[in-house]
């Protein structure tokens, strides 16, 4: 059974204080690992797709990296508008179009 575990559950940072969010996964043949951002009361919004170990993707202050067992979402010099819940999901070779999501990390950036 495919599983995704995210840590920490919640993280509070000061503006400008860089940090990383973790996504550990167990999947029978990874076909993709995905990061989404979710604002309160809204649906998730797609950020990145990573396909293989060693791959990296960047968008503004966010950088996602992937190893064979986990992915990190690095946040550099965050701003208050980066506050959101960040979701990680995986899709397996057998999973067709099904994404399995983790529980998310709720990130708060204080000004």
């Amino acid at each position, binding site marked *: 059974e495919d599983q*995704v575990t995210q840590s920490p559950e919640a993280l509070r940072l000061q503006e400008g204080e860089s940090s990383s969010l973790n996504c550990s996964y167990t999947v029978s043949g990874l076909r*993709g690992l*995905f990061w989404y951002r979710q604002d309160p*009361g*809204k*649906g*998730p*919004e*797609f950020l990145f*797709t990573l396909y293989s170990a060693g791959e990296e993707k960047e968008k503004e202050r966010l950088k996602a990296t992937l190893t064979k067992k986990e992915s990190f979402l690095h946040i550099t010099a965050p701003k208050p508008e980066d506050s959101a819940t960040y*979701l990680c*999901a995986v*899709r397996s070779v057998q999973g*067709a*179009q*099904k*994404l*399995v*999501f*983790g*529980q*998310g990390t709720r990130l708060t950036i204080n000004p």
Partner: protein
Amino acid sequence: DAGITQSPRYKITETGRQVTLMCHQTWSHSYMFWYRQDLGHGLRLIYYSAAADITDKGEVPDGYVVSRSKTENFPLTLESATRSQTSVYFCASSDLDAANTGELFFGEGSRLTVL
């Protein structure tokens, strides 16, 4: 307006009643999905559809029924609502290319409370 819309946004019902949550997308995306989001469980897939008249079960399909007679609509019906179905329900869509990249486009959610 273009995009994906869900209705109603908020619904309160009683145990045993039938409830239908509507989802409409204007992109002509082939894939549509229903997820539920609960504290402690994250997003879990209920049903998905690859095209009109093609649906398949997800992780938690029991107690739910879907249909897709038109590409743009994907209603989710709770035939006899239970308290355990109190949740926030998200509809999502994608075309084949986006589905391969994992890029789903989500609606804003329908918050359902079953008393």
